[in-house]
């Protein structure tokens, strides 16, 4: 059964990651911290794509709305971090609703386009109201999650694990089943009596919630909110590549892909500029020759018996 196969893969990895601070230095932890937040981005995206069947080209819209809401509250009103995060993720959900309710009427490339345009709009607005948002400079925050790498790592790792468990559980739950049915064949799902739009919007909200929360936490990790970190199209592209690379509709694969991308970018830092080139080339090779991604084979094998 798939469930046990996924868990058999995930548990040892999680255990190893939990024990990691005993063995490695602060820098590697810092790296994995970012990797964990990206993993949440990618898993949230995978919930939408892999299960609800909707290609969201603008994951950074949700991430950015959550991140900037949290950042602004902290910068101007000095709200405590948990309150900023809560309101930030709520804002991401509302932003997601505003985007999804009309956009889900559209099919094919149009849904993707709306999500893409949403990101460009957000980016433009942030730059336009630079006086408030800090524009291209970004917004520096008075608060930071922690300056201790180990603490930061456990925040991020714990967050990723909980999110992963929730999203994975959700994808295997009855609701996840309905969602998959809606994603794969909307007509048939409706004929079975399911309100496809309702379920897709719910999925969008869940994706938005975790994306926004992760965006907020990332901002408090850096203690800087900048367009380049949480809004830029390039960030969204990386999220999508991570999910496809790791293996679509596996949730866990998305996390693996995200951590891989962050780690690979860093390991290749000595070759300087060519690092991005090499990582892209590698991802391209995976997509061309192993379209199932890293975990596609491992987790989705055979006729299930």
């Amino acid at each position, binding site marked *: *059964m798939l469930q046990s196969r996924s868990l058999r893969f995930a548990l040892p990895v999680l255990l190893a990651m939990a024990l990691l601070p005993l063995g490695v230095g602060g820098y590697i932890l810092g790296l994995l911290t970012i990797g964990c937040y990206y993993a949440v981005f990618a898993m949230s995206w995978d919930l939408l794509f892999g299960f609800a069947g909707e290609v969201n080209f603008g994951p950074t819209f949700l991430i950015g709305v959550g991140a900037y809401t949290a950042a602004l509250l902290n910068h101007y009103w000095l709200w405590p971090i948990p309150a900023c995060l809560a309101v930030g993720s709520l804002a991401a959900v509302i932003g997601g609703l505003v985007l999804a309710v009309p956009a889900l009427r559209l099919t094919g490339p149009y849904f993707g386009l709306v999500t893409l345009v949403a990101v460009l709009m957000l980016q433009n607005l942030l730059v336009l109201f630079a006086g408030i948002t800090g524009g291209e400079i970004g917004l520096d925050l008075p608060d930071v999650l922690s300056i201790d790498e180990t603490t930061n790592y456990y925040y991020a790792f714990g967050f990723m694990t909980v999110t992963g468990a929730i999203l994975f*559980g*959700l994808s295997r*739950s*009855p*609701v996840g*089943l*309905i969602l*998959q*049915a809606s994603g*794969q*064949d909307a*007509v*048939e*799902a*409706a*004929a*079975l*009596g*399911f*309100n*496809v739009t*309702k*379920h897709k919007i*719910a999925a969008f909200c869940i994706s938005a919630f975790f994306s926004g929360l992760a965006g907020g936490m990332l901002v408090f990790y850096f203690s800087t909110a900048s367009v380049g970190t949480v809004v830029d199209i390039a960030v969204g592209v990386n999220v999508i590549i991570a999910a496809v690379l790791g293996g679509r*509709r596996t949730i866990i694969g998305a996390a693996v892909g995200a951590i891989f991308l962050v780690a690979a970018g860093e390991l290749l830092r000595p070759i300087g500029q060519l690092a991005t080139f090499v990582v892209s080339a590698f991802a391209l090779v995976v997509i061309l020759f192993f379209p199932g991604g890293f975990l596609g084979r491992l987790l*989705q094998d055979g*006729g*299930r*018996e």
Partner: protein
Amino acid sequence: MALLKVAGLTKRFGGLVAVKEIGFSIAPGEILGLIGPNGSGKSTVMKCIMGIERPNAGSVEIDGIDVAGWPTHKIARQGVGIVFQHSRPLQRQTVLEHIKLALLPDNLLMLFTDHAVMRRAEEIAARVGLDRVMHRLPRTLPFAHLRRLELAKAIARNPKVVLVDEPFAGLTAGEVADFSNLIGSFRAEGHAVLLVDHNVKGVAALVDRVFAMYLGERVAEGTADEVMRNETVRAVYLGGKIETAARPERKGKGRTPLLEVRNAGVLYGKATALDDVSIHVGEGEFVSVVGLNGAGKTTLFNAISGLVPYSGAISWRGESLAGRTAGSIARGGIVQCPESRELFGDMTVRENLDLGGQHLEVAEAAKQLDWLFGLFPILQSRQGQNARTLSGGEQQMLAIARALMMKPKLLILDEPTLGLAPVILEQLSKALETLRQTTDITVLLGEQNVTFALPHADRVYVLEHSRIVWEGDPGRFAEEAGTGYL
């Protein structure tokens, strides 16, 4: 009181009236057969009931509540279930998960599976005979199992009204019996069942009543026997009278073999679309392949044209066609005029024809064009018009003319009569006759309309359930094979 009551149902697509003021009702424990040839609008009626299409007028009452225009999921919750003709199962869910899905309420907060639901799903799997394959993915299952799965979902939904689209398409005789039993059990439990199919014969044994449609309108209603005896129905399916026309004999006709199909088989996923079919066509012959919709005609032609992968062997003038692209087969002289016509809608009639003549010398193409304008004068007057603006009959003529522009050795005509009014059929028939009389072209015609298929034919094949079941002279068709054609 009727569980399902349809009245004045009308559906238009643009200017086309697909369904016109259809009305019928089904009582609890009753099975109604809704029949009609392809394009008659029967599937649209079904979609309107289910809410997949919004009707333009009319009412659809489920147990007394008018649901016309409701969204599909609400209609489903009101007690309508559908068994789709094409099994499109979810690729990543097991059989049991499919059944479980059908048992779930429309609720966002179900995070844990209820054990009662699991048990019920297993029971249903056992009832339809899927208990051994519960944990397998659909793509590993044979076709009949997928159809069972569709039924299992309908049972799980336990609807008041069950719509079943072409229940027996692609099934073997044994499987048909099995399925009839399962559908019969719906009746026994007091559901109202609507069976949608092409012909009466297929469903006659199962239905209580039959409602026949043609070109969007009701043509007959009654018991299966009554409908089969109905003159209009006979005309629609068989034509008025089966007759054969005199044809000029040519020297050596049919002697030189052109096309030879041996033991061809085609699978669409798990479904057998063509099973061990062998036919041959000689030079100058006019061969008709007669069969109901879904019998495999189009699949056979597509295999010949190189559009689908097949097993067995197809040879053209003694050379195998295996490995050749569809384009090169067409250039080699086998030109198909498909059922779907495949015109270039945004290009003019003339441009469509010119594309057909692109492989010819300019002068030769011009000559061919003149000749075709003689054959189909209407096309000449419509030269500058966009193909999409032509009427159905004109489009069909254009499709045939475009294929003829290629100067084919063998012209494959697939269902040229599809959805055409009788008066157009006559024109088309005349054109084919002219073609046959004045040229030595070889034609392979696929038709469900026997009236149209027989008069021109030198030889007839009958294709049923993916197999050739009869071959012979059109003169013998009526007595030997004709009865099956209602």
